């Protein structure tokens, strides 16, 4: 565990880094009349692409060497995805999927599956 001192420093730096990400477009384009077309083009699609990559990054621990946890991740993720495809409430999707995952990893129900 990181020492409290280091933690506090990390938090300050993380706050600054986060602020910078939100500040960048205003620094780059704040006083310009027109935003270059290629930036407008990228702007449309970046949020979607980054979301794909963030999801993949969250699920990268899925592997054959770790079947119970991988299965729990897969099942819970599918649950979240299906729920959110068919209804609009984000909380329902997140809450249900998380409870399911916590149940699966805490009860070790999937541990009997070993190839």
């Amino acid at each position, binding site marked *: *565990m*990181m020492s409290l001192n*280091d*933690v506090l*420093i*990390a*938090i300050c*730096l*993380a706050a600054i*880094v*986060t*602020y910078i*990400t*939100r*500040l*960048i*477009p*205003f620094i780059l*384009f*704040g006083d310009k009349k027109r*935003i270059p077309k*290629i*930036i*407008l*083009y*990228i*702007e*449309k*699609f*970046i*949020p*979607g*692409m*980054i*979301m*794909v*990559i*963030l*999801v*993949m*990054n*969250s*699920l*990268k621990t899925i592997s054959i060497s770790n079947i119970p946890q991988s299965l*729990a991740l897969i099942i819970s*993720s599918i649950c*979240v*995805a299906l729920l*959110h*495809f068919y209804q609009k409430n*984000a*909380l329902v*999707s*997140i809450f249900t*999927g*998380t409870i399911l*995952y*916590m149940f699966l*990893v*805490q009860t070790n129900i999937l541990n009997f599956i070993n190839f």
Partner: protein
Amino acid sequence: MKRHHIEFFKIIIKKTAPIFFGYFAIGFAYGLLVENSGYPTVLAPLMSLFIYAGAAQFMIIGFFTANTGITEILSLVFLINSRHIVYGLSFIKKYSINKWFKPYLIFSLTDETYGLLTGSDIPNEHDNPKFYFYVSLFNHLYWIFGTTIGVIFGHFITFNLKGLDFALTALFIVLLIEQLKNKTSKIPFLIAFVSGLICLIFIGGQNMLLISVVLSISILILFRRILENDES
């Protein structure tokens, strides 16, 4: 309080109500998680006050307990928040004002605030900086509030929180599906998926985020002709 002040705040509360529920719940889960990690109780609300980025905050608490190096923490915080770089693009004009709270408007531009303020249903008489300020402020306060209640709760009640951090993965999946529902062309999603796969297979683990993003954007630019015709 003057009558039109009360009316104004009624509208702010009505507009931000959905965010209240979301931020309270996830903030609550976050507070529980931090309280469970053994650090001082005040840490979580502090993070929610100064960092104000749910995904990054969840990620960071995991790094603290795992004793991760500071450079790695900061680069991942930057990456996970990199989508915020494009949010500001939609607000260049709206936020080109000379008010004292302009830095705060920029600071508090989260996914949900972005979604709320770019939505189509802001009545004309309220489409102004003062409105943006109070919406942003209230959302921020909801987040801090949820976190605080979470740590207080976690302080008095201990229960097994194993797997709670899946909430973050779930949040990303939800955000992804909302993006999928909104965009007609699925090609950018495919581009990102393929880039991600390539990086996972050949690079694996830690560096996958940055390189996938760079790779995706490069391929996206190559596809410009096709995609611009698709959208119009």
